[in-house]
């Protein structure tokens, strides 16, 4: 294999830092495909989880347990008529979803799935993330305006006012986490996403537990603000169908509408990634200080394989529990194939976990490690995704003025206080 392929595997730098264009491109493609896939499965997961919260079954017909539902939805959306309202500004109408999508996807360039598993490690990583994700607001405003209709316009103004307001509290919460990175010998913090996780590694504590309860409060502020930032329940003014405005994407249909949805879910994943990186130790496995030693390392490195085994088991249980009727035959086979696929992945992960232990083995131990990094990172993000669904099933919707009040009069003072307190505590301790 050429050098530029193999050199990265043993390197501790991201492709961007190392100037490795091949791997950078690979990451870009993997992330693009991965996020799209994640959004699709998130769609399925949300419908199923929400359904089970509400004592329903959710999609059951398209594929076993509705597994093919996202694909069916995607095909339906692609084939739907693409309506541009009369009097709409055609170009802006066309470009608005792309702005949102671009903003949501560009952010992924600096998300660190591992110490070297990112497209690039930017010096201003978190600043870049906040800045680019705030560009999504433009897509919302412009979409509402271009629809040439009153309700989308009001909806767009509301959504963007909401996003801009919560950005303030969100940014201040982020700053208090960045402040924590400077608590080292040199006294300099960092804005780099990888640097932030490294700082948690060096200080041996996730920032959520740092200066208890300051880190926790900052995290909670961020967790609330990020729900509002992504226009999700209970702050989903855009989807408040029972109220006056149905939101900025009222006039959109088919593919364009699905681009908005894609952007929304991608933004959910990216803000969750920020939360994970800043407060939950990013790619670090839990108890990396407490439970050390090669035995613990082995146990934790088995987690990915075990997870996939569990998923495979769930699939097989699903096969067994299906009614013994002939019309379920295809579904049974499909689910079984899906289960075997998961099982195969589990097997591969197991082999890597066992064989990648020693340095001299055929599989470099870095591969084993990177699987661990990515696994823990994605697991933490998945918890946030589940929380998003949980919120939606549990809470009523805020009224718009209450929502703004929460943003400006509750979250902003809290995050300011936490910021000042963090700075004072940091100075006193150093």
């Amino acid at each position, binding site marked *: 294999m050429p050098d530029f392929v193999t050199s990265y595997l043993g390197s501790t730098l991201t492709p961007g830092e190392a100037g490795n*264009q091949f791997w950078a491109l690979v990451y870009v493609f993997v992330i693009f495909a991965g996020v799209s896939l994640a959004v699709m499965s998130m769609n399925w997961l949300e419908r199923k989880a929400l359904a089970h919260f509400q004592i329903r079954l959710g999609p059951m017909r398209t594929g076993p347990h509705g597994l093919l539902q996202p694909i069916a939805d995607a095909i339906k959306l692609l084939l739907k008529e693409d309506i541009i309202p009369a009097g709409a500004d055609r170009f802006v109408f066309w470009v608005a979803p792309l702005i949102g999508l671009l903003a949501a996807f560009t952010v992924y360039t600096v998300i660190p799935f591992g110490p070297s598993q990112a497209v690039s490690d930017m010096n201003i990583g978190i600043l870049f993330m906040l800045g680019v994700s705030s560009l999504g607001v433009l897509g919302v405003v412009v979409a509402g305006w271009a629809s040439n209709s009153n309700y989308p316009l009001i909806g767009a103004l509301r959504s963007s006012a909401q996003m801009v307001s919560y950005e303030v509290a969100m940014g201040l919460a982020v700053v208090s986490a960045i402040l924590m990175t400077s608590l080292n010998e040199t006294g300099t913090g960092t804005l780099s996403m990888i640097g932030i996780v490294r700082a948690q590694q060096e200080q041996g504590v996730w920032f959520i537990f740092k200066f208890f309860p300051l880190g926790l409060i900052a995290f909670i502020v961020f967790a609330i603000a990020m729900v509002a930032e992504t226009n999700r329940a209970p702050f989903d003014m855009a989807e408040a169908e029972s109220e006056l405005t149905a939101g900025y994407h009222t006039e959109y249909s088919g593919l364009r509408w699905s681009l908005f949805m894609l952007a929304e879910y991608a933004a959910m994943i990216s803000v969750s990634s920020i939360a994970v990186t800043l407060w939950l130790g990013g790619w670090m496995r839990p108890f990396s200080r407490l439970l050390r030693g090669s035995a613990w390392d082995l146990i934790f490195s088995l987690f990915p394989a075990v997870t996939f085994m569990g998923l495979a088991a769930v699939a097989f249980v699903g096969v067994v529990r299906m009614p013994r009727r002939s019309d379920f035959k295809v579904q049974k086979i499909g689910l079984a194939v899906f289960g075997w696929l998961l099982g195969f992945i589990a097997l591969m992960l197991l082999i890597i976990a066992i064989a990648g232990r020693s340095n001299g083995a055929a599989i470099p131990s870095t591969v084993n490690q990177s699987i661990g990094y990515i696994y823990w990172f994605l697991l933490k993000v998945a918890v946030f995704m589940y929380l998003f669904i949980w919120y939606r099933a549990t809470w009523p919707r805020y009224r718009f003025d209450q929502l703004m009040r929460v943003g400006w009069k509750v979250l902003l003072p809290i995050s300011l206080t936490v910021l000042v307190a963090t700075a004072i505590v940091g100075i006193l301790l150093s």
Partner: protein
Amino acid sequence: MNSAINATNATMAPVATPYFFYGLATLAIVSAFLVITRRNVVHSALALIVTLLSVAGLYLMLYAPFVAGVQIIVYAGGVMVLFLFVIMLVNIDRSYKEKRFSGLWPIGLAAASALFTLFLFAFIKGRALFPDRMMLLPESSNTQQIAGLLYGDAGKMGQYTFAFEIASLLLLVAILAAVVMTKKRA
């Protein structure tokens, strides 16, 4: 001067820098042209966003990542959203029917062309004033160094700390002014 650039390229190898520069510069100028010529204000605003983003790209090429980040957050994410908000609040239907340019546009254009000529003249005449060199700036500690200038370092007050505080006061005044002016009269 070439050596300086080469020295930069040796450590960090940006891909085909000149192409990026020309691309971003063209984008910035073309969209700036669109800003002042479009009849529809929203189109102007969108074009301005493109200009701002391309300028941010140029900052990155100048090894000023922090300024680029600030440019994206403050301009593209903040100021332009404000602009779009205001455009949507004020009724822009009328501007379609109106003349785009003021009656004095030939004079303005002439004055601006004269200014540009002056600039070019100065550039050409004063080539020697701009030493043709590129200093290597440390990119990785860019933010820290700016912070040092702004807030001070190692217990000392920074060179611009006072100016920074004044700037924050300015922002406060601007916020108050905006609130007072847009408030409805009782």
